[in-house]
């Protein structure tokens, strides 16, 4: 449940930043990226759609994506994502708690975008 709230909150943070944060707006203005964040069992899943500056979202695991951060479970996802720390992400992957489906370069793009917020 906490993960669901976190993902929803993340969407609103991204949407708000796309309206108010000049640096973030510039970074995302030409990109078309569909990034999914979900748990392996699909119970928690949210798609973030970046479309040349506009940000929308959709719930559920069955949407097409460019890259997906697939977490082993909701608790891990929540704790690691809250840290907003590259090292925590790296070790989550190394410990088998996170994998990236699709193209990891989009996950890196998302990480770079978040640095503007």
């Amino acid at each position, binding site marked *: 449940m906490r993960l669901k709230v976190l993902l929803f909150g993340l969407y609103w943070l991204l949407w708000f930043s796309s309206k108010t944060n000049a640096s973030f707006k510039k970074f995302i203005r030409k990109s078309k990226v569909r990034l999914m964040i979900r748990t392996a069992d699909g119970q928690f899943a949210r798609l973030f759609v970046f479309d040349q500056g506009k940000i929308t979202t959709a719930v559920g695991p069955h949407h097409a994506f460019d890259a997906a951060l697939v977490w082993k479970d909701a608790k891990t996802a929540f704790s690691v994502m809250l840290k907003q720390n590259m090292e925590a992400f*790296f070790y989550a*992957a190394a410990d088998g708690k*996170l994998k990236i489906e699709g193209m990891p370069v989009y996950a890196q793009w998302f990480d770079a975008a978040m640095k503007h917020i």
Partner: protein
Amino acid sequence: MTKISGGHLVAKYLKEAEQVTHVFTISGGHIESILDGLTEYGLKTIDVRHEQAAAMMAHAWSVYTNTPGVCLVTAGPGFTNALTGIVNAHLENVPLVVLCGRHPIRDDLKGALQEMNQIDMVKPVTKWCATCYDTRRIPEYLAIAFRQATMGRPGPVFLELPPDILFAEIDGGSSPVVPRRRHKTATRPIQADLEAAARIINAAQKPVLLGGTGIGLSDCGPALKAFVEKTGIPFALINYGRGVLPDDHPLSLSEGGFTGITSGLPVADVIVAVGIRFNWVLQSGQLFPNAKVIRIDIDPHELDRNQTATVGLEGDAGTVLDLLLPLVDKRDHGQWVESFRRAYTAFMTTELEKRRTPSDPIHPSRLVAQIMEVFGTDAYYVADGGDTTYYGLSGFSSVHRAGVQIPAGGLLGCLGTGIPFALAAKLAHPDKPVIVLNGDGSFGFNSMEFDTAVRHNIPIICVVNNDCAWGMIKHSQEISLGHDRCTCADLGMRHYEKMVEGLGGYGEIVTKDEEIIPALKRAAASGKPACVNVVTDPTVTSQATILFYQSFSEL
């Protein structure tokens, strides 16, 4: 006293003083005397179909043999055609010796055939360039050229030889050719800097060694092996450093390709950068913003370029590693290495699946994996193109020095390097399979060199990753402009295999996954220069394209 012409004196010098065995060239009137000299002194001439390929093959010869490659081109268009290859060698710091014809001295400013100011054109892209005006001084000029090309930071040199001095005859004894002394010189860092570097290395918890062309040109395999195995530092080698230690070394991170190298660098605490520039390939050093950085380079100007070094050590890669060795502790970073590998494996989930899974249409990652299935790590691989270079660099693996190269993917981003590089690799290592993975776009630049391959019996195997487009550009345009506004990006389906057959080689087309391996085996068994034209999924976009597009999006 025996007479010798200037042209013959050039050949005599190349053979006797420099032990040159191969010269890459196209014939031309201005250089006829040198060509005859090459015959007289028994040097192997590889005559190509475009001077660009001659320069690129000589460049590649330097890479694969660690001896300076020599190309000989005629004046005017011979020179301008070679210029792209010279620039490529300049940006890659490769010791390339370019000998070039010139209009006669007596005709200066008269409007002679092919009269042009070659020297001023080539000056910014060479370490040294000159015109020789005296037949007797030919050996002296050539000696300077070879020294300039090879000493310190290597690079291309250019020597213009007018026909007036090439056709003139002198007494053989008046300009003796003596073997060039190879002076061993070494710049070494001060002891305090070496000790400071060793302290950082000894305290590191998550170190990574990044090695580049400086390692390859230093040919310092034993020094590098001793250093990484004592310190336990995992390493990634790129450019001409790739394969100085084999990709299957327990501490190598190369198997993860681009994703592998970039996935762990942001969390590394120490980067040991050896003979590698922090240019766009390494995002100007921004990939590891929090790490302490030890930079080792033969060119002191590189030590702080784009990112200030915590410690900068000037010198030849192998020499500096030898100096560091007694100062560093024996360490085991096994856990860090394992974490690194598991992390990039998790990041590469989809790519690894693509490699394992038969695909229809064929995915380029699958194609590369199938090529590896046939030829394994005891082969030389070259990739040439846009997206194609990403798949090649990620998927190919070799135990040989410079065994995996993407010569189009460096600073010049010059398409068309693949076939010349593969030809040079095969000449240098005739007993090993040499495979070039070409995009269909890049194939077009130097594909006529299959004629060279047939005439000189150089049986390379070219696999065309044929997506019927300039893929990297087309996909970028699709992202930025939309699918309906792509311009100048489509190539259409072409039977490149038939073109190669027409030139006397072996050709096959492949459209299905299960056909890849049998076709590759038949191509190898043919013993001819071969082209396997593989139709791949035109919708697939590589990670490199996304980075390429994003770099422009932020402007």
